[in-house]
Each structure stands twice: as C-alpha cells, then as structure tokens.
C-alpha cells in the first residue's frame, strides 16, 4: 500500500511538472489558434536564462523568475507581433505553424552556437531535498512546481473571467471580428496573450531548472508531453491542461512501476489514443474551431 501511495505521489508530482509546462501552450492556442511549435524552445531559453542568472549573480533559482518571466513575455509578444501577425492574412493557416517550427529550429541552433552542446546544471539550492508527507516522500522542488501549477491555473482563470482585459481576451478568442466591433484591438490582445502564455513558460523554466539539467535540446524532451497534455485536456482549456497533466503523470508513474519503465511511453500514448477515440475534442474540449475550417 505504501508503495502504491508513493507511486501515486510521484505521478502527481510529474503531473505538476507537465501542467506547468503545458499551461502557456494551451493558453496561446486557445486564444490565437496558433500551435506554437517553439514552445519547448521557449522553455529551453528560460532555463538557460535561469542558469545564467543563478550562476553569474549567485541568486536563488526561484528569484530569477522576476527576470525570466518578463523576458519570456517580451519574447512571446515579439514572436506574435513580428512573426505570427504578418502571417495572419496568409491564405493558408499552416504558414503560421511552419513559422513556429522554423523559430524552434533557429532557437535550438542559436543555443548551440552560444552555449554549445554541453549540459548546464543550475544549482539545486536544496530543492532536491526529499520531504516526507505522511507515508510518501517527494522532492521539495516538486512540491513547489505542483503548487505553482495549481495557483497558475486558478490565477489565469480568475484573470480571464473577472477582469476587463481578461474578458476582452476571451471575446477575441470566441469571435475576433465581433470583438473588434466592440472596440477591442484584437492584434494587441494577441500580442498580450502570446506574451502571457510565454511568461507562464518563463515561470515554468525557473521552477524546473534546479531539478533538470539544461541543454539546447531540453525543449524537445518536454514539449511532446506538453502537446499530449494539451490535446488530452481539450485544446485551449486551462483547467483541462491541469487535469490532463495529472492523468498523464499518474499513468506514466503507475505504468512505469507496475508494467515496466520501458513501456511507460507506450502505455501513456496508448491511453492517450483511446481517450481521443472516445472523446475527440479532449476531456474539457468544446468545439475546436480552426479558422481555416469555419
């Protein structure tokens, strides 16, 4: 029984990790309807930035978030303004997807050029210390990741539903032309939303960097799971991403322990496929409306 609880705890902690890296992706998709294939590289950039700030300035990795999150906000806002927005009028929506794939490749190679292929280890600052919670034992840093993911979901939902800007973001997501007729600057809302989504990745970077080694290709390691989580939760749904992340985390941990660690991914993707066959729009998905269909 204790082993089972420990495996469940590991699954939830893994879920927290998956959630924190997926929230920005689903936010951007839900509003702008652009799949950001450079999402993983945003994470990589944030982790490198955390590494640099922590090692060069001797700060706690969590303190670096005050620089990393705004920096990622700017990166995201610029990506929308300079890369996606000029392509919005393109006849084929796929052009935007290719543009973010291009950005991803460019960022990986830029990282290789600037840092090389080595691994950058951010100081752990005690965040790898095991903590006992009742019968289970998890890492201190994992608990913070889990809590931050949960708070971020609640915070973003409150922002989107209770503030005038948040409502304007939802209005643009639901009907761009009608939102413009209300006097909402839709292009600005897109820039803001991409920035917020990227800033969420920035927060994730500073939380993850002390626990995982940073490298130029770390983004590709995380991003596939982020896509699975986002699709499973229902594209664009923030609470859906959280639930999807917990589900994937639990399946990953349980399958890894009871079936075999080699088969973890096979089980995760098998369950993912079954859920998609049963609920094609994901757990919390409503109508997924892509602009080239409507």
């Amino acid at each position: 029984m204790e082993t089972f609880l420990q495996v469940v705890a590991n699954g939830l902690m893994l879920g927290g990790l998956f959630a924190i890296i997926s929230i920005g992706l689903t936010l951007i998709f839900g509003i702008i309807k652009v799949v950001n294939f450079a999402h993983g590289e945003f994470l990589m950039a944030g982790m490198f930035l955390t590494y640099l700030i922590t090692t060069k300035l001797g700060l706690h990795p969590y303190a670096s978030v005050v620089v990393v999150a705004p920096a990622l906000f700017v990166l995201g806002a610029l990506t929308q303004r300079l890369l996606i927005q000029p392509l919005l009028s393109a006849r084929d929506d796929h052009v935007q997807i290719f543009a973010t794939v291009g950005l991803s490749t460019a960022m990986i190679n830029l990282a290789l050029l600037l840092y090389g292929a080595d691994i950058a280890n951010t100081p752990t600052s005690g965040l790898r210390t095991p903590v006992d919670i009742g019968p289970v034992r998890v890492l201190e840093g994992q608990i913070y990741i889990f809590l931050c993911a949960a708070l971020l979901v609640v915070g973003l939902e409150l922002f989107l539903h209770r503030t005038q800007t948040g409502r304007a973001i939802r209005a643009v997501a639901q009907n761009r032309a009608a939102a413009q007729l209300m006097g909402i600057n839709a292009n600005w809302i897109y820039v803001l939303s991409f920035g917020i989504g990227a800033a969420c990745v920035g927060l994730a970077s500073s939380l993850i960097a002390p626990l995982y080694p940073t490298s130029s290709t770390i983004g590709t390691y995380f991003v596939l799971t982020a896509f699975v989580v986002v699709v499973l939760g229902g594209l664009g749904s923030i609470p859906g991403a959280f639930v999807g992340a917990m589900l994937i985390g639990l399946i990953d941990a349980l399958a890894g322990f009871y079936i075999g660690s080699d088969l973890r991914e096979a089980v995760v993707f098998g369950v993912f496929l079954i859920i998609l066959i049963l609920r094609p729009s994901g757990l919390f998905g409503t109508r997924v409306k892509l602009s080239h269909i409507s």
Partner: protein
Amino acid sequence: MLSIEGVDAGYGATTILNGVTLDVQAGEVVTIVGANGAGKTTTLRTIAGLIKPTSGRVTFEGQDITSLPAHEIVDLGITLIPEGRQLFPDMTVRENLMMGAYRRGARAQQHETMDHVMELFPRIRERLDQHASSLSGGEQQMVAIARGMMARPKLLMFDEPSLGLAPIVVAQVFEAIGKIVAAGATVLIVEQNVFTTLKAADRGYVLENGSIVLTDTAEALLSDDHVRQAYLGI
C-alpha cells in the same frame, strides 16, 4: 454625419463595391436596399473598418476614417450590429453586454446604459447569467442589439437584424428598433424586409451589383416602379 465617397471595396482580389457614395445625416434613419450579394453587408463592414476600401473615402463628423482600424472607429461612435448576431457564445449575456461597453467613452456609464437597455429588452434581464449560446435566435438578436447600444454610439448600423428569425420574433425586433429610432438615434440599416424598413426610414439607397443605382426619400422609393417590382414584389 457619415459620408462615403466613391468607395471600391471587396475581399482579396474580388471587388464587390464599385464607387459607392452615400451619406447619413444626424438623426436620420437610412436604409440600403438590394438583392443578396449586391454589397450591402460589405458597405457596412467597410464603414465599420473591418474591410479597407481600395479607393474612395469614408468620413465621419468631418474626420477621415478610411484607414482607421475597426476598434478605433468604434471609439468615434460608430457601432455595427453584425449579420448573424455574432455574440460571444461562451460568455454570459451580462459579459456580452459588458463587452459592448468596452470603448472608453462607454465604460464609465456602463451601469446606466445597461439599465436603459433592460427597459428596452425586458426579456434580457432574466437571461443575464446564461451563456449567450443557450438563448433562442430571437433572444440572441435582442442581446446583439442591446450589446451594440451599450457602446452609446452616435451612429448605429444594423445588418439584417431579422435574418433567420420566426415572424413573431421579427415583429418584436422591429418594435425594439422602432423604439430606438423614436428615441432619436441615427441609424443605417440593411434589412430583407424592405417594405417594413422603408416605412420606418427617412431615406433609402438602392444597391445593385456593388453600385448605388437609385436614392430618394423612403416615401418616394416605396412608390417607385423599379423598387416595387424588384424588391417589394408588387
């Protein structure tokens, strides 16, 4: 108040409007009559700034608004109630109305405007906390009109407000528009019920294949042979 001079506009390479010229004076109710595809909606969307004309000029209260983005045109006091209602489906009715009052000039008076709009559409009050998508077509149209009024526009443009509604609901929508007109609003309306609309309007324009072919007082248009044959079926 509003004037369009020699406007060409369309979607991509397709030109729909050819040298459209029309004007609306303060306090007037003006209607554009025309067949499907004549360019009525395109005209309204061009005024609202959703489509940019390839040539010609749009001015509002003496200011050239031809190249202004749609959201800035709303700030100046022009509101389009679009065809097909275009509500925010996953927002409540209250939130839809709040979005209507998004522009700076309207936000401060949001609560008074909402009270006023509720008097006009009492049915909406009971629906305030429901999602817009759960409303009937007629209720959605009421919300769309109410949302447009939340901006406190100087010029209100209606695009096919009765489209797809049951006859009894159409009557309610026209009654509401009648009240808005009676209160002195300046209105530019495109509507398939040509007879009813001309009855309520001061002046009208007849739009055919993207060009204005006839303009006169509503009264004169109602007795015009071409209008009677082509649009009134008399």
